């Protein structure tokens, strides 16, 4: 098994792993470390991975690798995220609009962190990581229906928490 075979199979899922890593870590630098750790661990186990679903396998490795980091992040009084986005608020076309979007993003991050862990994990896997309910069920070792119910409850609560802050500009 060559590293090129491995990279061809796994690199298409980098954005999904990155999105999940960003929600498990306090800042982009830690997320990059987590993604690299995930890929190195995956590479070492690739020969034994067989023909299973690569994306859910990678995500499971990311969750395991990031568990200690996640615990640390969740102990923080406020999830530190979006600082890099704020820094990019300079000479944009719509500075006020960008600022509101950033505030909303931060509100979503805070609301996500406030969800019960099973719901938060389900949303991170399905809505942010882009896994199907079946893939998420495989990662979490629970029935697909359980994932769907957790996602539904989590989404409702997320919407309520963000709307409570008065920042959601949706329909």
């Amino acid at each position: 098994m060559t590293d090129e075979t491995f990279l061809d199979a796994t690199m298409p899922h980098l954005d999904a792993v990155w999105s999940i890593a960003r929600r498990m870590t306090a800042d982009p630098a830690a997320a990059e470390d987590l993604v690299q750790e995930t890929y190195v661990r995956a590479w070492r186990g690739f020969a034994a991975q067989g023909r299973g679903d690569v994306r859910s396998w990678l995500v499971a490795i990311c969750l395991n690798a990031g568990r200690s980091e996640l615990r640390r992040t969740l102990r923080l009084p406020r999830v530190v995220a979006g600082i890099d986005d704020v820094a990019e608020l300079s000479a944009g076309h719509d500075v006020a609009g960008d600022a509101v979007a950033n505030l909303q993003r931060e509100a979503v991050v805070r609301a996500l962190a406030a969800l019960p862990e099973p719901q938060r994990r389900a949303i991170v896997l399905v809505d942010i990581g882009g896994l199907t309910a079946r893939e998420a069920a495989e990662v979490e070792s629970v029935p697909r229906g359980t994932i769907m119910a957790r996602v539904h409850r989590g989404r409702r609560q997320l919407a309520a928490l963000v709307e409570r802050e008065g920042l959601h500009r949706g329909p």
Partner: protein
Amino acid sequence: MAHDDPRVVPYLAGDLDGTGAEAFEGHLVDCDDCWRSVGADRRGRALAESLRELAPPSLRDRVRMGVEADSPRTSPSRHRRGVGAVIVALAVSLVAAGVLAGLGGGAPADPMAALVHIAADPPASGSLVIDGQRVELTRDVLDGRVVTVGRSAAPLAMPAGARVLGEEAGSPWATTRGSMTVVCLSSPENLLVVAGLPADRLVSWARQLPMRPASG
């Protein structure tokens, strides 16, 4: 107490067949609880999906290098740790950049490009040779960015395309490769500093670094 229809979740997941979905949609029109539940789910989903992100382009290279450095092809013992792993990663970086004389098969094509390649994911410490000068590398953090600092015993020659930052003799020079800036100072010591930050910021920061002359 709000009505909690067991069809809401399968409906949103697309699990209801045509007849079932149609019947539930008929119910939705008349049921405020289900209408609110479906609407909140869709709003929550849109909010959650707004947190999806594309991985930074540099991460793709970093991941690739990390895997290649861990490959048996380049690392006889994949479980080695510490300094050994750093040296292997560094060697792989240089080979990947095609610039390491003796290994890459020729003179360095662009030593600054090689340096920037390494600075995208710098080791905790290491060294490389640029224009015959041994440069000891360490990493630091400035304004939230990783900074690679190189120390050499003698000043490095200014590469083509670099610009001098000042009018006095011995002024620092700077050059850029992509989003990365390389600055080189000869006072108070011979320093190379690489990061995705403006040259003047790197120079003012580097001038305040504690002296730690390169060995050898």
